[in-house]
């Protein structure tokens, strides 16, 4: 059941983006940015948490989940550190993902060569 929930919630989040791409001609970078910021807002209002509990990876793997993680981490950090937490919480919570993306991108760029499309 948890797999099914992850599948359809994750799938639906992608469908919303696909509709935005086709109908509004928003560029992918804008879509991604919109999704992350939406995740922060939805997370901040407490709307995303139930979704994340229901769908698991279906809600955390899409980029809205990235935003949700930022909001969640910020809140936790503020509880512990006060105002300082507003600045450390977001990056701390997402550090794993960002660091991994940077490092793997570097690694891949070093190993592989660009190729023409067919």
């Amino acid at each position, binding site marked *: 059941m948890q797999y099914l929930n992850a599948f359809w919630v994750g799938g639906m989040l992608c469908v919303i983006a696909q509709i935005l*791409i086709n109908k509004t*001609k928003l560029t*992918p970078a804008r879509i991604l940015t919109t999704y992350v910021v939406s995740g922060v807002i939805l997370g901040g209002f407490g709307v995303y948490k139930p979704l994340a509990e229901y769908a698991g990876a279906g809600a955390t793997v899409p980029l809205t989940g990235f935003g949700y993680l930022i909001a969640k981490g910020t809140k936790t950090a503020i509880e512990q550190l006060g105002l300082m937490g507003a600045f450390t919480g977001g990056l701390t919570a997402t550090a794993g993902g960002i660091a991994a993306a940077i490092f793997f991108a570097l690694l891949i760029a070093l190993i592989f060569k*660009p*190729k*023409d*499309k*067919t």
Partner: protein
Amino acid sequence: MPTRQGRYTLRLDSCPSIVSFAAVVGKKEGEGPLAQEFDIICDDTTMGEKTWEKAESRLQKDAVNRALSKGGLSASEMDFILAGDLLNQCISSTYGLRDLNIPLFGLYGACSTMAESLCLGSIMVDSGAAGHCVCVTSSHFCSAERQFRYPLEYGSQRPPTAQWTVTGSGCAVVAPSCKAPYVRAVTVGKIQDMGITDVNNMGAAMAPAAADTLKTFFMDTGTTPDNYDLILTGDLGQVGSQLVEELLQRESFDISKRHSDCGLLIFDIKEQGVNAGGSGCGCSASVLCSHILNKIQHKELNNVLFLATGALMSPTSLQQGESIPGIAHLVHLSSTSYQDDCTINGH
């Protein structure tokens, strides 16, 4: 000498000849419907170079060398080379041609550059300013993607209106009148901007320019589309081709039966996954300098209006929200010269 005909058309009285021409293309183009026509098909689109920019320079260099060797010409006989491409500061031309030691005019007219260089080269030969002019342009899918769109490995979807930059280069050598194909007249286009901002719909941005230049030419010369075997636009693709026909229909010029587009000829639109068709400086150049000039040479086509179209925007102007201005230059190519006309009429 060039004489002005109507308002914007130049009649080239001596009818300069295109004495030699060559087209070099990449793998995908070499798998398309015109495969048999090209001089060189490069299965390795890196051309053995380290970067895509160097690869494009190499395309241009190979096209010039092939055109010269086909015509039995040497670089030292050339008076001018008129070259352009799509990359910033026209680096493909500069680096590709730096060893040739021919006086160079670097041109930028986006994808209209092949017609621009042919216009200028023919005018120079017709006016006596030059004996031989080399006209060459190129584009490379990979270097264009990097500059104008996304990195090659980036996962994005191309909308159906988007076009595929041709990897290729075409070169034509213009010389004093001697044999077909002849250049009879040229019309230099004006910038037309109908406010299209969608970078994935260049055909729509360029169609008004093509329509305007064609209309100007017909008015200036007092001819109609039916006087020509072929009206060949550069890279309007499916969308732009439909639009240029519609725009001219509104002006009571029906080009639909005569019109074709290099971007639609070079690829099999259905099979090769190129969406609305080919584009780029190399698109019109490689189609013209193979398929079309061959046919004129063999008198299978007698009167062709070659009309390369360009979208004159940059990534910066687009990000600043500017619309995409278009331009189109026309070259009237023919299997007969004005002198031939006189001879025929005389008998």
